[in-house]
């Protein structure tokens, strides 16, 4: 380590570790988003997370074992002597922050003092907590590193182990990068066609990770009864809930099938709403709009007729549907709706 440090400046070592961390994160995102079919997705995401954690550790280790410039070294040496008192002061400042805030507000006369008081009063518990978490990790790390150096001084064998570890960590990121890039091209160069699979949602599981990033997966049942588990992509799969979902699977440029999205089966949901509340205007209108988009004119006319039965005064809706049908070249259906609208208006 010392030998390597002599060869390369501390800044380059830290930047190298940061690059490793950033690359692991970037590749992890690619694997996460181009979700392959089967358990490979979950495994890929776990591997990415492990690599990110590994490079974060390497990064911290390099920062902690870096040789700082002379001016900073003096500062750190002095800081080490007073760090306990600084912490004590911060805690006291946090405890008395409401009084400091009050004092800064009632302080008469313009000077720097009330400004400083106000700033000190804004030291919230949350900020101090985060600061302390970072400082505790850093100090513990530093202490453990020093202890480790004391227990096991640098030797040729230790240097060989460290070098081997570096090679393994770098190779792992490189291999993961190749896999992620292949998945990325497989998905982005893919044709526009997607196959939609209708499934029944059996169970949803969400695990909240310590970093407030929820990891969710769902268990789906196909029409033939077979079960499959799919990990969800936060922010991509949209708001899904209920019983029926649509899984959009694409073939992939390299033939690796991947799941584009898992979404609520809007069509099924609207049909169920119409079934449950036949006189409800909103779901009926939504179903008519859906049938028009699907080119199922007969169904659209049927539902518009039912709608007019409940809401005979809303002939504007019937005319809008008729116009849409006319625009699509279905003059006969449009004419039928016009007649229905006229009959409803005459009622």
């Amino acid at each position, binding site marked *: 380590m010392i030998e390597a440090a002599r060869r390369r400046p501390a800044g380059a070592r830290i930047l190298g570790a940061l690059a490793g961390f950033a690359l692991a994160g970037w590749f992890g995102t690619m694997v996460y988003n181009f979700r392959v079919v089967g358990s490979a997705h979950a495994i890929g995401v776990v591997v990415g997370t492990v690599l990110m954690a590994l490079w974060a550790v390497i990064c911290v280790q390099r920062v902690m074992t870096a040789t700082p410039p002379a001016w900073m070294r003096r500062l750190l040496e002095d800081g080490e002597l007073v760090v306990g008192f600084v912490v004590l002061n911060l805690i006291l400042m946090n405890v008395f922050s409401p009084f400091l805030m009050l004092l800064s507000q009632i302080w008469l006369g313009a000077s720097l003092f009330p400004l400083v008081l106000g700033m000190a009063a804004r030291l919230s518990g949350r900020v101090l907590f985060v600061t302390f978490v970072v400082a*505790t990790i850093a100090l513990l790390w530093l202490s453990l590193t020093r202890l480790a150096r004391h227990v096991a001084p640098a030797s040729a064998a230790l240097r060989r182990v460290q070098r081997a570890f570096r090679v393994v960590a770098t190779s792992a990121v490189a291999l993961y990068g190749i896999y992620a890039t292949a998945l990325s091209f497989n998905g982005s160069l893919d044709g526009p066609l997607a196959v939609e699979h209708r499934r029944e949602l059996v169970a949803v599981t969400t695990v909240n990770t310590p970093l407030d990033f929820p990891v969710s997966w769902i268990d789906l049942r196909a029409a033939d009864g077979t079960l499959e588990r799919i990990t969800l992509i936060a922010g991509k799969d949209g708001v899904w809930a209920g019983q029926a979902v649509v899984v959009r699977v694409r073939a992939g440029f390299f033939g690796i099938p991947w799941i584009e999205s898992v979404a609520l089966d809007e069509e099924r949901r609207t049909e169920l709403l119409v079934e449950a509340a036949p006189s409800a205007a909103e779901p009926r209108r939504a179903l008519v709009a859906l049938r028009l988009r699907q080119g199922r004119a007969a169904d659209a006319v049927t539902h518009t007729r039912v709608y007019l039965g409940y809401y005979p005064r809303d002939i504007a809706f019937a005319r809008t549907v008729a116009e849409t049908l006319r625009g699509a070249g279905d003059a006969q259906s449009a004419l039928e709706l016009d007649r229905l609208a006229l009959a409803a208006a005459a009622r």
Partner: protein
Amino acid sequence: MIDRLRRVGLHPSVILALVLMSLWMVAYRRLDGVAIELYQPSVAGVRAFALYLNGRYGDAARAYREAHRGPVWASDTGDPTGAWAAAVGDTALAERRARTALEAFPTALEPRVTLAEVALDRGGLAEASRELSAVLASHSDHIEALYLSAVVHGRAGRAGQAIDALNRALRSGYAGARRATPFRLLELAGDLHARPAAERPLCLLAHLFRYLRIFDGAHAARALAYAELAVAANDRPADAWLTIAVVQDKLGRHEAAMQAVRHALAADPRHAEAYRWAAVEARQRGDLLLQYRMIRKAFESALTDPYYVEDLSRVVLGRLGDAHTMTALMEQALAADLNNAMARKHLAAARLVLGAPRSGPPAR
């Protein structure tokens, strides 16, 4: 020792910093979710807080009430119902003000609540119960009266009625405005919690800790634990499951909350509040169909309770645009209780939609 540490490269100041930071972080994690009401800036308040942190809730609540004692700053006109005087422990002045107000306005509710508070402070459960019954007879959803009723019933050993009062108060989403209310419930919870395990009213304790969770997130675990014990002991299992559902919802675990609601409904298929929570969870998941079914069930399970009409209207009229169903449901509610003003209001709104020139509800 210090020299040895220095030789290894560990300065005592670093060790001190690590210890201080760790202690502060532990304290912060414990105190982060504690509401401002539990911090009283006085020696008595510090004692109360220490008792509270020590888990002696009954003693802590009494110490808090002691810490609240002080001069009555508000004049007769500033505190006509005597609520402030009761809050600072001047029961004689509180009673005098409340009775004066009642002489002038015999139908006023707040002075009666003050009289109930005074009676409770003097240990007169029967008198407190009488005053609260009078309040609830004219306003069945009076939050303060419901919370105080829960205290009276809990003290009198009527756990079931205490749970009903708490559930009814908690559905409002308010913890009560009177200063002493949380501490009365804390005292009750502490006293019941201190009983031998076999004598504890498990389901009531679950509800009390569900209420106290509003002021301290740490009570969520206690509420869940007591609710699970209540389910195991078959002590009002539907209400216990409902408590689990609500606490899980507050903890952001919506799947677990939904599961608990299902259990509550399996235990009591006519539990209106459980249906309402099922609707809340359905809305959280964006499932309009389930939300509609559940809020309709809630309404149908408690036809004479106007509380569910507003939520029902929001779904049936607001989101589904179903003026026909809304009209039919409101007519059903009015058939059950002609004095249901809320049903009357929403029936008028639904009929207005049906009679409008452009009949269907406006497209969104």
